[in-house]
C-alpha cells in the first residue's frame, strides 16, 4: 500500500506462463520461487523475535521491504511512502508494517 492509495496491492507468487522451453529456461519462474523462499525464511525468522522493533532489524524483513517497494513501483512510479502486510491467507495477517519512506 502506498500513501496515495487506500488499497493493498497483492504480490503474486504465481509462476509465469510456461512454454515448451520451460525445461531449459525459466528465469522469472526461478526468481519467483526465490521470492517465495524468502517469505518462508522470514516466517521462520519471525518465530524467534518478540516485538516489531526486533523484526525490523531482520535481514529477511529488510529484503521483504525491498520486495514491497519494488512491487508498488510497478504500479505507482512516484510513490513516497509505503507499508505492507504479510497474510497467511485472506484473513490472518501475520504482520502489518509501519509506514516507510522510499
Amino acid at each position, binding site marked *: 500500500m502506498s500513501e496515495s492509495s487506500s488499497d493493498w496491492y497483492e504480490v503474486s507468487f504465481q*509462476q*509465469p506462463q*510456461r512454454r515448451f522451453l*520451460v*525445461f*531449459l*529456461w*525459466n*528465469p*522469472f*519462474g*526461478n*526468481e*519467483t*520461487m*526465490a*521470492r517465495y*523462499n*524468502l517469505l*518462508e*525464511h522470514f516466517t521462520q525468522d519471525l518465530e524467534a523475535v518478540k516485538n516489531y522493533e526486533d523484526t525490523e532489524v531482520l*535481514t*529477511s524483513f*529488510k*529484503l521483504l521491504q*525491498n*520486495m514491497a517497494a*519494488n512491487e508498488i513501483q510497478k504500479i505507482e512510479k512516484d510513490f513516497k511512502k509505503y507499508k505492507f502486510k504479510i497474510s497467511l491467507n485472506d484473513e490472518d495477517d501475520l504482520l502489518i508494517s509501519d509506514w516507510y519512506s522510499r
Partner: protein
Amino acid sequence: MLATALFWTSHLVLLSLLIQTLEFIWTYRSWANDGIWKFTTLKSELEKIFPIGKIGIRLLFSPLSIQLLLALRILVIGHAFVRPNLVSFLVLLLSHLILCWRYRGTYNGGSDMITLMTLIGLAISYSFPEGQPMRAFGLFFIAVHGISSYFLSGVYKLKQASWRDGSALALFLKKSWPRPVMKILSWGALCFEVGFPLSLVNLNLAYAFIAIAFFFHASNAAFLGLTRFLWAWAATWPAILFLTAYLNGIS
C-alpha cells in the same frame, strides 16, 4: 565406465550451471542496486559472517563483482566443456558458494545444495590424475548424496499426513483433481523417493529409477516451474549408475 560416468556428470552439471548463470544475468534487476537482494541491504550481515573487511565484502558481493563473477563463470564453463579439470571445478564451486551466500541460501534451495555436492564430488575426482581409479571417490560421493536426497525427501513427506492423503500434492499442483487420483499420485511419488536406494541393487533397477526420476523432475518443471531441479539432479544420475555398476562388479 569411470571415464564415461565422469564425462556425463561433468557435462550435465556444466549445462546446469550455464543455464543458472544465464538466468542470473537475465534477472539482473533482482540483485542490482534497486533490486530485492540489493547489496546495501545484505552487506552488514555479510560483514558479520565473513571477517574480511568492508573492501573484501564489496569485492566479493557488490553488483559489479557479481557481474564479473557471472562472466568468469561462462568462460570457465566453456573451457571445462572442452577440457574438464580441477581448477575449473574449484572456481565453479567457489562462485556457486558466493551466489548462494548472496541470496542467503534461498534462491532455489534444494537444487543449489545438490549442485554444491556435485561440484565438491567433481573437485574430488579431478584432484586425482587421469586414469587413476581413485577418481571414482568423487562419483561415489555424488551418488550417495543423490540417492540420499531422494530418500530423505521421501521420508520427510511420508511423515506428513497431508502427503499421505494427497492434499499437499493438490496444493502444490493447484489442481482440483479427484481425491483418489491425488492420493495415488502422491503415494507414487512417496514410493519412488523412499524406494530410490533400491537402485543400487542392480543396473536394470537403477535405469528404471532414473527413468522415473526424469519423468518426476520433468513433471515438476512443467507443472511447478522447477527447471533447475531437473538439470541439477540429472547431473547425479551418471554417478548413481556408476556406483550401482561398481557394487555389482560391472566395470
